[in-house]
Protein backbone atom coordinates (compact mmCIF):
# COMPACT_ATOMS: atom_id res chain seq x y z
CA UNK A 1 0.00 0.00 0.00
CA UNK A 2 1.33 3.42 -0.91
CA UNK A 3 1.13 6.79 0.80
CA UNK A 4 0.09 9.80 -1.23
CA UNK A 5 1.63 13.22 -0.65
CA UNK A 6 0.33 16.43 -2.16
CA UNK A 7 1.67 19.95 -2.62
CA UNK A 8 -1.40 21.62 -4.08
CA UNK A 9 -0.39 24.91 -5.61
CA UNK A 10 -2.72 27.42 -7.17
CA UNK A 11 -2.03 26.37 -10.75
CA UNK A 12 0.21 23.26 -10.48
CA UNK A 13 0.02 20.35 -8.09
CA UNK A 14 3.01 18.26 -7.17
CA UNK A 15 2.29 14.71 -6.04
CA UNK A 16 4.56 12.05 -4.59
CA UNK A 17 3.65 8.44 -4.07
CA UNK A 18 5.72 6.52 -1.52
CA UNK A 19 5.94 2.76 -1.57
CA UNK A 20 7.84 0.27 0.60
CA UNK A 21 7.77 -2.55 -1.95
CA UNK A 22 7.97 -0.64 -5.23
CA UNK A 23 4.35 -1.11 -6.28
CA UNK A 24 2.41 2.02 -7.22
CA UNK A 25 -1.17 3.04 -7.99
CA UNK A 26 -2.19 4.00 -11.50
CA UNK A 27 -3.98 7.23 -10.58
CA UNK A 28 -1.42 9.51 -12.18
CA UNK A 29 0.20 7.36 -14.84
CA UNK A 30 -0.15 9.92 -17.59
CA UNK A 31 1.57 12.57 -15.45
CA UNK A 32 4.58 10.63 -14.25
CA UNK A 33 7.51 12.97 -13.79
CA UNK A 34 10.24 10.81 -12.29
CA UNK A 35 11.10 8.01 -9.89
CA UNK A 36 13.68 8.04 -7.13
CA UNK A 37 14.58 6.40 -3.84
CA UNK A 38 14.01 8.53 -0.76
CA UNK A 39 14.49 8.05 2.98
CA UNK A 40 11.96 8.42 5.76
CA UNK A 41 12.75 10.00 9.15
CA UNK A 42 14.14 6.70 10.40
CA UNK A 43 16.49 6.37 7.45
CA UNK A 44 14.47 3.59 5.77
CA UNK A 45 14.60 3.53 1.99
CA UNK A 46 11.30 4.13 0.19
CA UNK A 47 10.50 3.97 -3.49
CA UNK A 48 8.87 7.10 -4.79
CA UNK A 49 7.26 8.41 -7.92
CA UNK A 50 6.50 12.07 -8.34
CA UNK A 51 4.01 13.68 -10.66
CA UNK A 52 3.22 17.18 -11.86
CA UNK A 53 -0.28 18.09 -13.01
CA UNK A 54 -2.51 21.13 -13.29
CA UNK A 55 -4.47 21.69 -10.07
CA UNK A 56 -7.71 21.98 -12.03
CA UNK A 57 -7.13 18.40 -13.32
CA UNK A 58 -6.31 17.08 -9.87
CA UNK A 59 -9.69 18.09 -8.50
CA UNK A 60 -11.41 15.81 -11.01
CA UNK A 61 -9.48 12.68 -9.97
CA UNK A 62 -11.08 10.27 -7.47
CA UNK A 63 -8.19 10.36 -5.03
CA UNK A 64 -7.48 11.59 -1.52
CA UNK A 65 -4.15 12.19 0.16
CA UNK A 66 -2.36 11.13 3.34
CA UNK A 67 -0.03 14.12 3.72
CA UNK A 68 -0.52 17.54 2.18
CA UNK A 69 0.49 21.16 1.97
CA UNK A 70 -0.60 24.08 -0.21
CA UNK A 71 -3.50 26.39 -1.01
CA UNK A 72 -5.68 23.96 -2.92
CA UNK A 73 -6.06 20.95 -0.63
CA UNK A 74 -9.71 21.46 0.20
CA UNK A 75 -11.71 18.18 -0.09
CA UNK A 76 -8.58 16.28 -1.15
CA UNK A 77 -7.55 15.03 2.29
CA UNK A 78 -8.27 11.69 3.91
CA UNK A 79 -9.93 11.88 7.30
CA UNK A 80 -6.73 11.01 9.17
CA UNK A 81 -4.42 12.96 6.90
CA UNK A 82 -1.69 15.32 8.12
CA UNK A 83 -1.62 18.90 6.82
CA UNK A 84 1.62 20.89 7.12
CA UNK A 85 1.75 24.56 6.31
CA UNK A 86 3.93 25.57 3.37
CA UNK A 87 6.70 27.30 5.29
CA UNK A 88 7.17 24.40 7.66
CA UNK A 89 7.15 21.97 4.72
CA UNK A 90 9.74 24.17 2.98
CA UNK A 91 11.95 24.17 6.09
CA UNK A 92 11.77 20.40 6.63
CA UNK A 93 12.08 19.61 2.93
CA UNK A 94 15.13 21.76 2.38
CA UNK A 95 16.87 20.32 5.44
CA UNK A 96 16.19 16.83 4.09
CA UNK A 97 17.45 17.67 0.61
CA UNK A 98 20.49 19.64 1.76
CA UNK A 99 21.66 18.09 5.04
CA UNK A 100 24.71 20.34 5.02
CA UNK A 101 22.50 23.44 4.99
CA UNK A 102 24.06 25.81 7.52
CA UNK A 103 23.88 29.48 6.59
CA UNK A 104 21.60 29.94 3.66
CA UNK A 105 18.20 31.12 2.50
CA UNK A 106 15.72 28.80 0.83
CA UNK A 107 13.30 30.65 -1.45
CA UNK A 108 10.18 29.02 -2.85
CA UNK A 109 8.41 30.86 -5.64
CA UNK A 110 4.96 29.65 -6.53
CA UNK A 111 2.48 30.71 -9.11
CA UNK A 112 1.05 33.54 -7.03
CA UNK A 113 3.32 34.00 -4.03
CA UNK A 114 6.78 33.55 -2.63
CA UNK A 115 8.11 32.43 0.70
CA UNK A 116 11.56 32.06 2.17
CA UNK A 117 13.22 30.69 5.23
CA UNK A 118 16.73 31.45 6.45
CA UNK A 119 19.00 29.12 8.36
CA UNK A 120 21.88 30.17 10.58
CA UNK A 121 24.26 27.51 11.87
CA UNK A 122 21.83 24.90 10.61
CA UNK A 123 18.90 26.25 12.62
CA UNK A 124 15.84 28.23 11.55
CA UNK A 125 16.51 31.95 11.88
CA UNK A 126 14.03 34.05 9.88
CA UNK A 127 11.17 33.73 7.39
CA UNK A 128 8.62 35.60 5.32
CA UNK A 129 5.74 34.93 2.95
CA UNK A 130 4.24 37.53 0.64
CA UNK A 131 0.86 36.11 -0.26
CA UNK A 132 -0.95 39.45 -0.30
CA UNK A 133 0.94 41.08 -3.18
CA UNK A 134 3.54 38.98 -4.90
CA UNK A 135 4.20 41.67 -7.53
CA UNK A 136 3.66 38.88 -10.03
CA UNK A 137 5.25 35.46 -9.82
CA UNK A 138 4.90 32.20 -11.74
CA UNK A 139 1.35 32.48 -13.01
CA UNK A 140 2.01 35.93 -14.46
CA UNK A 141 5.07 34.73 -16.35
CA UNK A 142 3.13 31.71 -17.63
CA UNK A 143 0.31 33.96 -18.81
CA UNK A 144 2.72 36.38 -20.50
CA UNK A 145 4.47 33.55 -22.33
CA UNK A 146 1.14 32.07 -23.39
CA UNK A 147 -0.12 35.44 -24.59
CA UNK A 148 3.01 36.18 -26.66
CA UNK A 149 3.38 32.52 -27.69
CA UNK A 150 6.85 32.15 -26.24
CA UNK A 151 8.54 29.06 -24.85
CA UNK A 152 10.35 29.89 -21.60
CA UNK A 153 13.31 27.78 -22.81
CA UNK A 154 13.86 30.39 -25.52
CA UNK A 155 14.31 33.24 -23.03
CA UNK A 156 17.81 34.44 -22.25
CA UNK A 157 19.10 36.55 -19.41
CA UNK A 158 19.26 40.27 -20.17
CA UNK A 159 21.11 42.75 -18.00
CA UNK A 160 18.33 45.33 -18.17
CA UNK A 161 15.30 44.88 -15.93
CA UNK A 162 11.88 46.38 -15.30
CA UNK A 163 11.09 47.58 -11.81
CA UNK A 164 8.44 45.21 -10.52
CA UNK A 165 7.57 46.90 -7.25
CA UNK A 166 4.15 46.81 -8.85
CA UNK A 167 3.61 43.94 -11.28
CA UNK A 168 0.94 45.84 -13.17
CA UNK A 169 3.35 48.69 -13.93
CA UNK A 170 5.85 46.08 -15.10
CA UNK A 171 3.30 44.64 -17.55
CA UNK A 172 2.65 48.13 -18.84
CA UNK A 173 6.38 48.49 -19.58
CA UNK A 174 6.37 45.27 -21.57
CA UNK A 175 3.55 46.59 -23.71
CA UNK A 176 5.23 49.99 -24.15
CA UNK A 177 8.53 48.43 -25.26
CA UNK A 178 6.85 45.98 -27.61
CA UNK A 179 4.96 48.91 -29.13
CA UNK A 180 8.37 50.59 -29.66
CA UNK A 181 9.59 47.54 -31.59
CA UNK A 182 11.42 45.44 -29.01
CA UNK A 183 10.92 41.68 -29.19
CA UNK A 184 8.52 40.07 -26.74
CA UNK A 185 11.30 37.64 -25.74
CA UNK A 186 13.59 40.46 -24.60
CA UNK A 187 10.77 42.29 -22.82
CA UNK A 188 9.67 39.20 -20.92
CA UNK A 189 13.30 38.50 -20.02
CA UNK A 190 13.53 42.02 -18.58
CA UNK A 191 10.35 41.32 -16.65
CA UNK A 192 11.81 38.06 -15.31
CA UNK A 193 14.99 39.88 -14.33
CA UNK A 194 12.87 42.42 -12.44
CA UNK A 195 11.09 39.57 -10.71
CA UNK A 196 14.41 37.94 -9.74
CA UNK A 197 15.68 41.25 -8.34
CA UNK A 198 12.43 41.65 -6.40
CA UNK A 199 12.69 38.17 -4.94
CA UNK A 200 16.28 38.74 -3.86
CA UNK A 201 15.27 41.94 -2.09
CA UNK A 202 12.23 40.24 -0.56
CA UNK A 203 14.52 37.51 0.84
CA UNK A 204 16.65 40.24 2.49
CA UNK A 205 19.48 40.17 -0.05
CA UNK A 206 21.23 36.93 0.91
CA UNK A 207 24.59 35.85 -0.51
CA UNK A 208 23.23 32.44 -1.42
CA UNK A 209 19.78 31.19 -2.32
CA UNK A 210 18.56 27.62 -2.58
CA UNK A 211 15.70 27.93 -5.03
CA UNK A 212 12.52 25.85 -4.82
CA UNK A 213 9.57 25.73 -7.20
CA UNK A 214 8.86 25.87 -10.91
CA UNK A 215 11.32 28.71 -11.53
CA UNK A 216 14.15 26.21 -11.02
CA UNK A 217 13.35 25.14 -14.60
CA UNK A 218 13.37 28.67 -15.95
CA UNK A 219 16.99 29.30 -16.94
CA UNK A 220 16.37 32.98 -17.60
CA UNK A 221 15.15 33.40 -14.03
CA UNK A 222 17.98 31.36 -12.51
CA UNK A 223 20.57 33.42 -14.40
CA UNK A 224 18.86 36.67 -13.48
CA UNK A 225 18.83 35.75 -9.79
CA UNK A 226 22.45 34.65 -10.18
CA UNK A 227 23.36 38.26 -10.93
CA UNK A 228 22.65 39.04 -7.26
CA UNK A 229 23.63 35.89 -5.36
CA UNK A 230 24.79 32.31 -5.69
CA UNK A 231 21.81 30.17 -6.75
CA UNK A 232 21.33 26.44 -6.19
CA UNK A 233 18.09 25.09 -7.70
CA UNK A 234 16.45 22.37 -5.60
CA UNK A 235 13.57 21.56 -7.93
CA UNK A 236 9.82 21.48 -7.49
CA UNK A 237 9.51 18.79 -4.82
CA UNK A 238 11.05 20.50 -1.82
CA UNK A 239 7.75 20.95 0.00
CA UNK A 240 6.75 17.35 -0.71
CA UNK A 241 10.01 16.20 0.82
CA UNK A 242 9.07 18.07 3.98
CA UNK A 243 5.87 16.10 4.45
CA UNK A 244 7.31 12.77 5.60
Amino acid at each position, binding site marked *: MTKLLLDAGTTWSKIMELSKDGSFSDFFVEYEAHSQDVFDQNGNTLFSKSYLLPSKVLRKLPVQFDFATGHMVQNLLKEDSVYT*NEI*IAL*AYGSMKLVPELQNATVLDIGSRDAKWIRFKDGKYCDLDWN*SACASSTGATVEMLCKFYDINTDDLSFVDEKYSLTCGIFGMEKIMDDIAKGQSAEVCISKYIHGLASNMWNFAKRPEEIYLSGGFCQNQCFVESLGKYCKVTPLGRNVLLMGLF
Partner: protein
Amino acid sequence: MKNIVAFWGYPDPEILKNEIAKNPNCEIIDLDVDYGYPISGVMCEAYCKIIANIMNNAIFLRDKIKVIVASIGKEKCDSGHIAAILLKDMGFNVIETKYETYSHKASPTVISESNLPLKDKIDLIMQGVYKKNNLTLTPAVPEVGFWGVPPNDFELLELFPDSTHVFGWTRCVEANRPADLELEMMVNPNLPTVFFTQTFCAKMQLAKYLADKYNGLFIDVDDKVNKSAKAKIEAFIKLR
Protein backbone atom coordinates in the same frame (compact mmCIF):
# COMPACT_ATOMS: atom_id res chain seq x y z
CA MET B 1 -33.14 55.50 23.53
CA LYS B 2 -29.56 56.39 24.39
CA ASN B 3 -28.19 53.63 26.59
CA ILE B 4 -24.51 53.23 25.67
CA VAL B 5 -21.38 54.72 27.20
CA ALA B 6 -18.76 54.21 24.52
CA PHE B 7 -15.02 54.62 24.67
CA TRP B 8 -11.86 53.75 22.76
CA GLY B 9 -8.21 53.23 23.62
CA TYR B 10 -7.41 53.82 27.27
CA PRO B 11 -9.12 57.06 28.35
CA ASP B 12 -8.32 58.80 31.61
CA PRO B 13 -9.67 56.25 34.15
CA GLU B 14 -11.24 58.89 36.40
CA ILE B 15 -13.20 60.46 33.57
CA LEU B 16 -14.38 57.09 32.24
CA LYS B 17 -15.31 55.97 35.75
CA ASN B 18 -17.33 59.15 36.30
CA GLU B 19 -19.24 58.71 33.05
CA ILE B 20 -20.02 55.09 33.90
CA ALA B 21 -21.16 56.11 37.40
CA LYS B 22 -23.35 58.89 35.97
CA ASN B 23 -25.02 56.40 33.63
CA PRO B 24 -25.49 53.23 35.72
CA ASN B 25 -28.02 51.67 33.34
CA CYS B 26 -25.93 52.11 30.26
CA GLU B 27 -24.07 49.37 28.47
CA ILE B 28 -20.33 50.01 28.15
CA ILE B 29 -18.92 49.48 24.67
CA ASP B 30 -15.32 49.53 23.45
CA LEU B 31 -15.54 51.07 19.99
CA ASP B 32 -12.13 49.66 18.98
CA VAL B 33 -13.65 46.19 18.58
CA ASP B 34 -14.99 44.83 15.29
CA TYR B 35 -18.66 43.97 15.95
CA GLY B 36 -19.39 43.40 12.28
CA TYR B 37 -21.48 46.56 11.86
CA PRO B 38 -21.83 48.00 8.35
CA ILE B 39 -19.07 50.09 6.81
CA SER B 40 -20.00 53.74 7.27
CA GLY B 41 -18.24 54.98 4.13
CA VAL B 42 -16.67 57.94 5.91
CA MET B 43 -13.23 56.31 6.11
CA CYS B 44 -10.57 55.92 3.42
CA GLU B 45 -10.49 52.41 1.98
CA ALA B 46 -6.91 51.88 3.12
CA TYR B 47 -6.75 52.87 6.76
CA CYS B 48 -6.13 51.40 10.19
CA LYS B 49 -8.91 48.87 10.81
CA ILE B 50 -9.17 49.79 14.49
CA ILE B 51 -9.88 53.44 13.69
CA ALA B 52 -12.32 52.27 11.00
CA ASN B 53 -14.04 50.16 13.67
CA ILE B 54 -14.37 53.22 15.90
CA MET B 55 -16.06 55.22 13.15
CA ASN B 56 -18.23 52.38 11.83
CA ASN B 57 -19.39 51.34 15.30
CA ALA B 58 -20.13 54.88 16.41
CA ILE B 59 -22.08 55.75 13.29
CA PHE B 60 -24.10 52.50 13.39
CA LEU B 61 -24.90 52.97 17.10
CA ARG B 62 -25.40 56.73 16.93
CA ASP B 63 -29.03 56.62 18.20
CA LYS B 64 -27.96 54.63 21.25
CA ILE B 65 -24.71 56.30 22.23
CA LYS B 66 -25.10 58.72 25.11
CA VAL B 67 -21.47 59.70 25.39
CA ILE B 68 -18.13 58.74 23.89
CA VAL B 69 -15.10 58.96 26.15
CA ALA B 70 -12.36 59.32 23.57
CA SER B 71 -8.71 58.59 24.12
CA ILE B 72 -6.79 61.20 22.10
CA GLY B 73 -3.34 61.43 23.68
CA LYS B 74 -0.11 59.50 23.20
CA GLU B 75 -1.82 56.50 24.78
CA LYS B 76 -3.77 56.21 21.50
CA CYS B 77 -2.68 57.97 18.31
CA ASP B 78 -3.25 60.97 16.03
CA SER B 79 -5.92 59.04 14.16
CA GLY B 80 -7.81 58.60 17.42
CA HIS B 81 -7.62 62.34 17.98
CA ILE B 82 -8.95 63.04 14.48
CA ALA B 83 -11.72 60.45 14.93
CA ALA B 84 -12.84 62.36 18.03
CA ILE B 85 -12.92 65.62 16.10
CA LEU B 86 -14.91 64.07 13.25
CA LEU B 87 -17.45 62.44 15.56
CA LYS B 88 -17.88 65.70 17.46
CA ASP B 89 -18.46 67.44 14.15
CA MET B 90 -21.12 64.86 13.32
CA GLY B 91 -22.97 65.74 16.52
CA PHE B 92 -21.81 63.02 18.91
CA ASN B 93 -21.33 63.86 22.56
CA VAL B 94 -17.55 63.30 22.78
CA ILE B 95 -15.41 63.82 25.86
CA GLU B 96 -11.76 64.02 24.84
CA THR B 97 -9.25 62.65 27.35
CA LYS B 98 -5.52 62.16 27.53
CA TYR B 99 -3.86 59.60 29.76
CA GLU B 100 -0.19 60.02 29.02
CA THR B 101 1.50 61.09 32.26
CA TYR B 102 1.48 59.08 35.46
CA SER B 103 2.20 59.69 39.11
CA HIS B 104 1.98 55.96 39.89
CA LYS B 105 4.37 53.09 39.21
CA ALA B 106 3.50 50.31 36.79
CA SER B 107 0.89 47.93 38.18
CA PRO B 108 1.77 44.21 38.30
CA THR B 109 1.20 42.44 35.00
CA VAL B 110 -0.11 39.13 36.26
CA ILE B 111 -2.56 38.61 33.40
CA SER B 112 0.18 39.12 30.80
CA GLU B 113 2.26 36.43 32.47
CA SER B 114 -0.54 34.00 33.34
CA ASN B 115 -1.34 30.61 31.83
CA LEU B 116 -4.68 31.72 30.39
CA PRO B 117 -5.23 31.33 26.64
CA LEU B 118 -3.80 34.41 24.93
CA LYS B 119 -7.23 35.54 23.74
CA ASP B 120 -8.57 35.45 27.33
CA LYS B 121 -5.51 37.31 28.60
CA ILE B 122 -6.07 40.14 26.13
CA ASP B 123 -9.82 40.19 26.72
CA LEU B 124 -9.28 40.47 30.47
CA ILE B 125 -6.63 43.18 30.11
CA MET B 126 -8.86 45.29 27.88
CA GLN B 127 -11.86 44.81 30.17
CA GLY B 128 -9.62 46.16 32.90
CA VAL B 129 -9.85 49.60 31.28
CA TYR B 130 -13.32 49.95 32.82
CA LYS B 131 -13.76 46.93 35.12
CA LYS B 132 -11.01 45.74 37.45
CA ASN B 133 -10.87 42.03 38.15
CA ASN B 134 -9.69 40.25 41.25
CA LEU B 135 -8.98 36.87 39.72
CA THR B 136 -6.29 34.65 41.13
CA LEU B 137 -4.15 33.61 38.19
CA THR B 138 -1.42 31.03 37.74
CA PRO B 139 1.79 32.30 36.16
CA ALA B 140 3.16 30.50 33.11
CA VAL B 141 6.75 29.75 32.22
CA PRO B 142 6.96 31.60 28.92
CA GLU B 143 7.68 29.80 25.64
CA VAL B 144 6.61 32.56 23.23
CA GLY B 145 6.00 36.29 23.43
CA PHE B 146 3.20 38.30 21.85
CA TRP B 147 4.00 41.99 21.45
CA GLY B 148 1.42 44.48 20.27
CA VAL B 149 -2.10 45.80 20.44
CA PRO B 150 -5.22 43.63 20.61
CA PRO B 151 -5.71 42.54 17.00
CA ASN B 152 -8.84 43.26 15.04
CA ASP B 153 -9.17 39.52 14.39
CA PHE B 154 -8.72 37.47 17.57
CA GLU B 155 -8.38 34.30 15.49
CA LEU B 156 -4.71 35.21 15.24
CA LEU B 157 -4.35 34.71 19.00
CA GLU B 158 -5.51 31.10 18.83
CA LEU B 159 -2.20 30.15 17.23
CA PHE B 160 -0.25 30.88 20.40
CA PRO B 161 0.29 28.49 23.32
CA ASP B 162 -1.24 29.36 26.71
CA SER B 163 2.27 29.95 28.04
CA THR B 164 2.63 33.05 25.81
CA HIS B 165 3.58 36.22 27.66
CA VAL B 166 2.13 39.55 26.55
CA PHE B 167 4.26 42.59 25.80
CA GLY B 168 3.88 45.95 24.09
CA TRP B 169 0.91 48.27 24.36
CA THR B 170 -1.39 45.58 25.74
CA ARG B 171 0.99 44.99 28.64
CA CYS B 172 1.17 48.77 29.17
CA VAL B 173 -2.61 48.76 29.52
CA GLU B 174 -2.43 46.13 32.25
CA ALA B 175 0.31 48.17 33.93
CA ASN B 176 -1.98 51.23 33.75
CA ARG B 177 0.63 53.14 31.77
CA PRO B 178 -0.67 53.05 28.18
CA ALA B 179 1.66 55.80 26.90
CA ASP B 180 4.81 54.47 28.56
CA LEU B 181 6.96 53.91 25.48
CA GLU B 182 9.86 52.54 27.52
CA LEU B 183 7.61 49.83 28.93
CA GLU B 184 6.11 49.27 25.49
CA MET B 185 9.57 48.55 24.08
CA MET B 186 10.41 46.09 26.83
CA VAL B 187 10.51 42.43 25.83
CA ASN B 188 12.14 39.27 27.09
CA PRO B 189 15.16 39.06 24.75
CA ASN B 190 15.45 35.30 25.27
CA LEU B 191 11.88 34.63 24.18
CA PRO B 192 10.87 34.08 20.54
CA THR B 193 8.42 36.93 20.12
CA VAL B 194 5.84 37.80 17.49
CA PHE B 195 5.65 41.56 16.98
CA PHE B 196 2.15 42.32 15.76
CA THR B 197 0.58 45.51 14.51
CA GLN B 198 -2.47 46.44 12.53
CA THR B 199 -1.54 47.47 9.00
CA PHE B 200 -1.50 51.29 8.57
CA CYS B 201 -0.82 51.77 12.30
CA ALA B 202 2.08 53.99 13.37
CA LYS B 203 3.23 51.17 15.63
CA MET B 204 4.35 49.25 12.53
CA GLN B 205 7.58 51.24 12.72
CA LEU B 206 8.18 50.13 16.29
CA ALA B 207 7.19 46.51 15.68
CA LYS B 208 9.49 46.14 12.69
CA TYR B 209 12.40 47.70 14.55
CA LEU B 210 11.95 45.51 17.62
CA ALA B 211 11.44 42.36 15.54
CA ASP B 212 14.76 43.03 13.79
CA LYS B 213 16.50 43.88 17.05
CA TYR B 214 15.34 40.74 18.89
CA ASN B 215 15.19 38.38 15.89
CA GLY B 216 11.46 38.06 16.32
CA LEU B 217 8.71 37.82 13.74
CA PHE B 218 7.13 41.01 12.42
CA ILE B 219 3.52 40.60 11.38
CA ASP B 220 1.07 43.24 10.23
CA VAL B 221 -2.51 42.32 9.50
CA ASP B 222 -5.15 44.61 8.06
CA ASP B 223 -8.67 43.26 8.59
CA LYS B 224 -9.00 39.50 8.99
CA VAL B 225 -5.88 37.41 9.49
CA ASN B 226 -4.94 35.67 6.23
CA LYS B 227 -3.50 32.26 5.59
CA SER B 228 0.07 33.44 5.12
CA ALA B 229 0.12 35.42 8.36
CA LYS B 230 -1.20 32.37 10.22
CA ALA B 231 1.35 30.10 8.52
CA LYS B 232 4.19 32.46 9.39
CA ILE B 233 3.22 32.56 13.07
CA GLU B 234 2.72 28.80 13.17
CA ALA B 235 6.10 28.19 11.53
CA PHE B 236 7.87 30.73 13.75
CA ILE B 237 6.52 29.10 16.92
CA LYS B 238 7.19 25.56 15.73
CA LEU B 239 10.65 26.08 14.24
CA ARG B 240 12.06 28.27 17.00
